[in-house]
């Protein structure tokens, strides 16, 4: 079986998953001049929307549903993108190049894009099914969380990752109490360095957020079917009105596995987002992809990653040169803090801090020898932007200049 012919503007495209990744493939294809039929199938009843604001601006009431939508409803009709919202792909027939939906409908493809995302990891402990024990992945989840927050409500967050910290910051802005329960000895243990963990914990503490570190969770306690508290491994129970479980996500790769595609912590793809079937692509949270810059295969959960891979798919289909290998990046907003991260600190052997941690304006640089691998910048856009450029360039960096506040980042990057 041959690949979808490059430059086939009439290729029939089916996209399974209508999140940020799936919606963006459709948009880029049309931007690049693709004219063939596109079918976009999503399980949620909503048009493709941005998820990052769900724990930030949206939760605080600073953004509405329209502003979250990637495109307004008319765009899909005008662009000839057929939506199957509330639709679930139950089977891929690779031989016939068809997907089967739960409704019984089928959709034929020349190229299939799997953008099925990831689902929230849940805790298999007593009380996990109580009302008020929530995850935060979808707009529906966010609605539930928002309706449970307000003045003097008590939020317990299980898991001190970005979602948990952002939700806690938003809860405080709404006048709620917030407690973060983390199994490790520090927050952001899996995703950030210790300097950053300490800084964020201190910043949240100063704004009234409580922390239980090194704390296992035994059970959720409830009354009349609704959560009333979280029982910790040491026997104590902390009271709450709502509990948010933010302990990571699991790639939705079942469909791909059943179809016999190579999977290993997500669907394994190459640098053009192709799976082990040349007509099937996988992008976004569900994919396990090569990162050229670091010579590694990783599964990333971020919007920039989804957009990058959406371009990787759309370009060859229309016969356009693919994007240059990117520096992965991430961001988070909490209170008045803007955290921007570029790169990933693989094999870093040295950490250099530039700026003033106490003034909440600093950056942590991760070096491997003289090469910059990653930068974590708090309210420090020049450090982030220059750092991102330095990571891409792969040229040695002068640490002496990097730590000298009198040398501008422009000069460091020059």
């Amino acid at each position: 079986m041959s690949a979808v012919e490059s430059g086939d503007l009439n290729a029939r495209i089916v996209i399974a998953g209508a999140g940020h990744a799936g919606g963006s493939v459709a948009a880029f294809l049309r931007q690049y001049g693709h004219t063939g039929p596109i079918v976009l199938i999503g399980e949620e009843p909503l048009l493709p929307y941005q998820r990052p604001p769900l724990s930030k601006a949206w939760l605080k009431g600073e953004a509405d549903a329209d502003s979250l939508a990637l495109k307004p409803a008319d765009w899909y009709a005008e662009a000839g993108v057929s939506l199957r919202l509330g639709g679930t792909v139950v089977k891929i027939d690779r031989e016939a190049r068809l997907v089967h939906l739960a409704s019984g409908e089928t959709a034929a493809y020349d190229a299939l894009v799997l953008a099925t995302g990831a689902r929230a990891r849940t805790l298999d402990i007593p009380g996990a099914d109580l009302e008020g024990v929530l995850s935060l992945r979808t707009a529906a989840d966010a609605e539930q969380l928002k309706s449970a927050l307000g003045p003097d409500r008590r939020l317990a967050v299980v898991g001190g990752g970005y979602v948990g910290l952002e939700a806690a910051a938003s809860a405080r802005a709404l006048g709620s109490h917030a407690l973060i329960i983390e199994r490790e000895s520090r927050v952001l243990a899996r995703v950030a360095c210790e300097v950053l963990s300490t800084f964020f914990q201190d910043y949240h503490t100063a704004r009234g957020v409580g922390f239980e570190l090194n704390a296992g969770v035994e059970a959720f306690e409830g009354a009349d079917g609704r959560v009333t508290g979280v029982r910790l491994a040491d026997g104590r129970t902390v009271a709450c009105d709502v509990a948010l479980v933010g302990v990571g996500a699991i790639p939705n790769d079942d469909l791909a596995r059943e179809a016999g595609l190579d999977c290993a912590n997500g669907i394994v793809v190459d640098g053009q987002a192709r799976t082990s079937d040349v007509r099937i692509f996988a992008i976004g949270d569900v994919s396990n992809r090569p990162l050229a810059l670091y010579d590694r295969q990783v599964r990333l959960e971020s919007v920039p990653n989804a957009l990058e891979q959406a371009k990787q798919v759309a370009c060859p289909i229309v016969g356009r040169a693919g994007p240059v290998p990117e520096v992965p990046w991430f961001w988070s907003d909490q209170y008045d803090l803007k955290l921007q991260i570029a790169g990933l600190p693989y094999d870093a052997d040295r950490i250099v801090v530039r700026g003033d941690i106490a003034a909440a304006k600093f950056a942590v640089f991760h070096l491997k020898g003289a090469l910059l691998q990653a930068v974590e910048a708090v309210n420090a856009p020049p450090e982030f932007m220059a750092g991102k450029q330095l990571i891409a360039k792969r040229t040695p960096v002068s640490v002496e200049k990097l730590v000298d506040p009198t040398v501008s980042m422009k000069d460091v990057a020059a």
Partner: protein
Amino acid sequence: MAKITYIQHDGAEHVIDVKSGLTVMEGAVKNNVPGIDADCGGACACATCHVYVDDAWLAKTGDKSAMEESMLDFAENVEPNSRLSCQIKVSDALDGLVVRLPESQH
């Protein structure tokens, strides 16, 4: 409502009616104007919505925040009339606005 003209680097023009209250970036993205990716959705975190504001409109689009300035400092192909379009709010006063897209976003 304001009529905004987005001119791509290759000269292609997109004239779009953008609702007041949205940003110039949102007006482009919601209508799938190529070249404005806005990876961060308007958080002033990525500089992928860079535009040049026609000189006649510069004063009306307001001042840049310190955050925007420092993001732009490191963007590609920056000119004195460079802005991040996610930081320009649309109002009736911007009816007729013309913005051009840089080569790096082509």
